[in-house]
């Protein structure tokens, strides 16, 4: 048999087709295979997709008959799944895989001589970080593929400023088949290796296509914002340039309990030393260390003078780990320190404050009730500045950290215990190190719009972007005005964007390049994402209301979110059985995030419905 056929199966083609319109990515992964064997064979289809993406569709087509996926409310799907599980014929489809990915795996038995086509569709809003949008594609075909291609078409109404593809497995031989081009509003990345170019060596029958395919781009920013309106929905992208950085007052609250000893503490120190090199001269800082007790580097916030930074480095090099974890007192101390610095005028009036806490465990001394800690912190901060929580390692109570950060206008990040943990910490600091605006409020004409997504932010950071979407309800008006107010380092700013609706309609007549109602789907995606986030902190009726709204949109727009599941009917042995595609949640512990999935071909479902642990 030729190289194209492995174990009787020929992969005729694998195509990854991405269409990005105004940061909203619509990706379709299609694989076509033929069973050349004399007997029925199992054919596998594995795709790793970003955790931030929502699956929207999956179909299996065997000999011309298509079996579609249906997105259902999780509970409804679960009943169907339980019934199937009891017959021993089902499998969950999506697992967490690594830090940023989820793995979608399915297999079907294909009769001798039959053809099968798998098609998975997922969508995501690409977020701007450090000045770039990034689209990540994991490439890992199981065998050589007759026709392999990745094609990404990007359409950005603001015009594309730069576009690059970073491919981890690229060789000189493959350089010719990777093309990147852009002009005006359109860009394309194409990668179409021939059959022979896929070989890991000239005589090998294994594929060298194994690794990361990352597309990075940015758009032109002649104006600080851009408003687009299509079919009754608007989106407003806001990212002003060339503003001076607002000085910041940072308190690092560091867990030095016993569990941080060894590699974790070494990496934490390395990251802090690196961060101290990047602290700006007009910033203020302090360190709070906590274990069973709480101690501070300096009594008050101190300016980042060269001498203070020298002493800070010495302090970081010398602190030691010991004892238990007293999160409550450490955070309250940090908040008190910032409040005092503000009240007594130690820090400049035009400055912003943040607390960055790093911990690897659970609160187990002092106040250890998480509800009470949350309440204390919430009351002490009073919405005045954000709290960022970095959760390090396997045993951290991440849900608690995330809730607490979210209700204090911050966010939580996992720091994965790995050789690059220091880089993960530094990376996070880089994202929040350069606030350009504080108290950013995006305003739209009241009677013209409805259902808008979050429109006020405590900070706008350099290299990021604020996105607000909503519905336009008044079509009588010809112009749409968006005002963005914020406090800068030196002055207060009001940016105004005015859009002529008729001109906009004309400009967006390049519809053949645009998939469907992209702004409507972008709005739905963003709304669901924000409802799910709000839901994490809500209780009782409020939580029910947020859940109902998010569920309604997930079903309406066919998104697999933590509230929905996709049921895929699988044709097998003349009898239908069912798959379930769920969205794994953050509470999946790190030790369950196994790289083993990446090569796990013969997946055996567990005997009980474990995969219905609620994803949120």
């Amino acid at each position: 048999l030729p190289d194209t056929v492995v174990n009787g199966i020929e992969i005729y083609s694998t195509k990854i087709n991405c269409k990005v319109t105004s940061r909203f990515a619509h990706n379709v992964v299609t694989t076509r295979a033929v069973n050349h064997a004399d007997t029925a064979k199992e054919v596998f289809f594995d795709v790793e997709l970003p955790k931030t993406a929502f699956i929207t569709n999956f179909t299996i087509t065997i000999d011309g008959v298509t079996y579609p996926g249906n997105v259902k409310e999780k509970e409804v799907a679960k009943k169907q799944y339980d019934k199937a599980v009891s017959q021993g014929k089902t499998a969950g489809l999506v697992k967490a895989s690594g830090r940023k990915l989820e793995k979608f795996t399915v297999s079907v038995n294909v009769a001798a001589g039959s053809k099968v086509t798998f098609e998975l569709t997922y969508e995501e809003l690409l977020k701007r970080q450090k000045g770039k949008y990034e689209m990540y594609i994991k490439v890992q075909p199981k065998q050589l593929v007759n026709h392999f291609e990745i094609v990404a078409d990007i359409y950005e109404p603001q015009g594309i400023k730069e576009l690059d593809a970073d491919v981890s497995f690229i060789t000189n031989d493959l350089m010719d088949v990777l093309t990147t081009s852009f002009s005006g509003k359109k860009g394309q990345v194409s990668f179409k290796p021939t059959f022979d170019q896929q070989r890991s060596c000239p005589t090998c029958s294994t594929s060298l296509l194994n690794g990361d395919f990352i597309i990075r781009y940015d758009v032109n920013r002649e104006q600080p914002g851009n408003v687009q309106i299509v079919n009754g929905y608007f989106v407003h992208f806001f990212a002003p340039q060339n503003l001076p950085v607002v000085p910041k007052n940072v308190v690092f609250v560091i867990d030095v309990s016993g569990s941080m000893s060894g590699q974790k503490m070494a990496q934490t120190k390395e990251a802090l030393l690196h961060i101290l090199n990047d602290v700006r001269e007009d910033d203020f800082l302090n360190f709070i260390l906590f274990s069973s007790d709480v101690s501070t580097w300096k009594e008050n916030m101190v300016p980042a003078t060269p001498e203070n930074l020298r002493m800070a480095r010495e302090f970081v090099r010398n602190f030691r780990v010991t004892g238990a974890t007293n999160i409550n007192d450490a955070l309250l101390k940090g908040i008190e320190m910032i409040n005092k610095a503000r009240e007594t005028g130690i820090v400049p009036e035009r400055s912003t404050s943040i607390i960055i806490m790093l911990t690897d465990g659970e609160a187990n001394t002092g106040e250890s009730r998480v509800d009470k800690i949350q309440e204390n912190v919430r009351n002490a901060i009073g919405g005045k500045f954000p709290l960022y929580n970095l959760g390090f390692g396997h045993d951290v109570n991440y849900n608690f950290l995330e809730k607490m950060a979210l209700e204090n206008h911050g966010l939580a990040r996992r720091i994965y215990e790995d050789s690059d943990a220091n880089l993960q910490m530094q990376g996070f600091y880089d994202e929040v190190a350069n606030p350009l605006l504080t108290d950013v409020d995006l305003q739209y004409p009241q009677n013209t719009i409805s259902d808008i997504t979050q429109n006020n932010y405590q900070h706008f950071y350099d290299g990021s972007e604020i996105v607000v979407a909503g519905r336009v309800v008044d079509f009588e008006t010809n112009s749409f005005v968006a005002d963005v107010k914020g406090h800068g380092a030196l002055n207060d700013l009001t940016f105004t964007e005015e859009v002529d609706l008729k001109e906009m309609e004309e400009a967006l007549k390049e519809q053949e390049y645009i998939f469907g109602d992209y702004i409507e789907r972008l709005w739905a995606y963003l709304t669901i994402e924000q409802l799910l986030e709000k839901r994490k902190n809500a209780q009782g009726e409020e939580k029910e209301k947020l859940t109902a709204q998010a569920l309604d949109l997930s079903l309406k727009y066919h998104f697999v979110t933590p509230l929905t599941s996709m049921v895929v009917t699988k044709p097998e042995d003349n009898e239908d059985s069912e798959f379930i595609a769920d969205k794994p949640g953050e509470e999946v512990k790190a030790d369950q995030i196994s790289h083993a999935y990446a090569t796990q071909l013969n997946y055996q479902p567990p005997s009980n419905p474990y995969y219905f642990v609620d994803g949120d």
Partner: protein
Amino acid sequence: PHFIIEVPQKDGALCFNIDVQPGVVLNLIRDPDTGITVNGEIIGEKDPSSETKKKKSYFGRLGIVDPQMDLQIEVTPQKITLWSGGRRTSFTWMDTVTITQNGLSVTINKKKNMVVSIGDGVTFVIVLHEVWKKHPIHQDFLGLYTVDSHRMSTKTHGLLGQFFHPFDFEVFDVRPGSDPKKPDATMIVKNHKLIVTWGSQKDYRMDSGHGTKVSCWFVHDNGSGLIDGVHTDYIVPTLF
């Protein structure tokens, strides 16, 4: 660049041109009491070797300084930069933005103009004049209008600033000039007797594309006799 001086008490206007080489910086306003200073750098045609009858010159860079507010504003047809306390914020003419800070207000109206108000009683409008990008000769330039100067001191000077205080002139002996539509006359101003010509210049505050005609008595020879001293007295070494 052409200068228009409105003289409300005479219900008329005076005009003059200043022709200097590109790169020269002229002082337009200087108030020794408040420290507010406005200077402008001259630009010429795109291709200096082109054979046009008369080389035109414009303001291509304007600088406004207020030392009391520790403020500097630099405006070019490409971008607008504010320095406050030595820290820089920059914008482009594609922005529509209002910047407010301790009595300062700067409003940029996308691709049209910007309004700078310093405290209460000093307001300038800077107009962006865009020309066709592929025009062989001309390039984008700026106009400066003082719309409120009542908080500036009586010591204010400069090519524009010297006219912020009331002054008198008299025009008589109107007679036919070389152009029948543009009569000549004799003007007495600042103790000088000048020959002036009736003409018109354009005010671009309201319509930066076409402008509005302003009829005025034109003072020849770089405003000689109308301005204090000679025009070269207003040359300063740098924008700030």
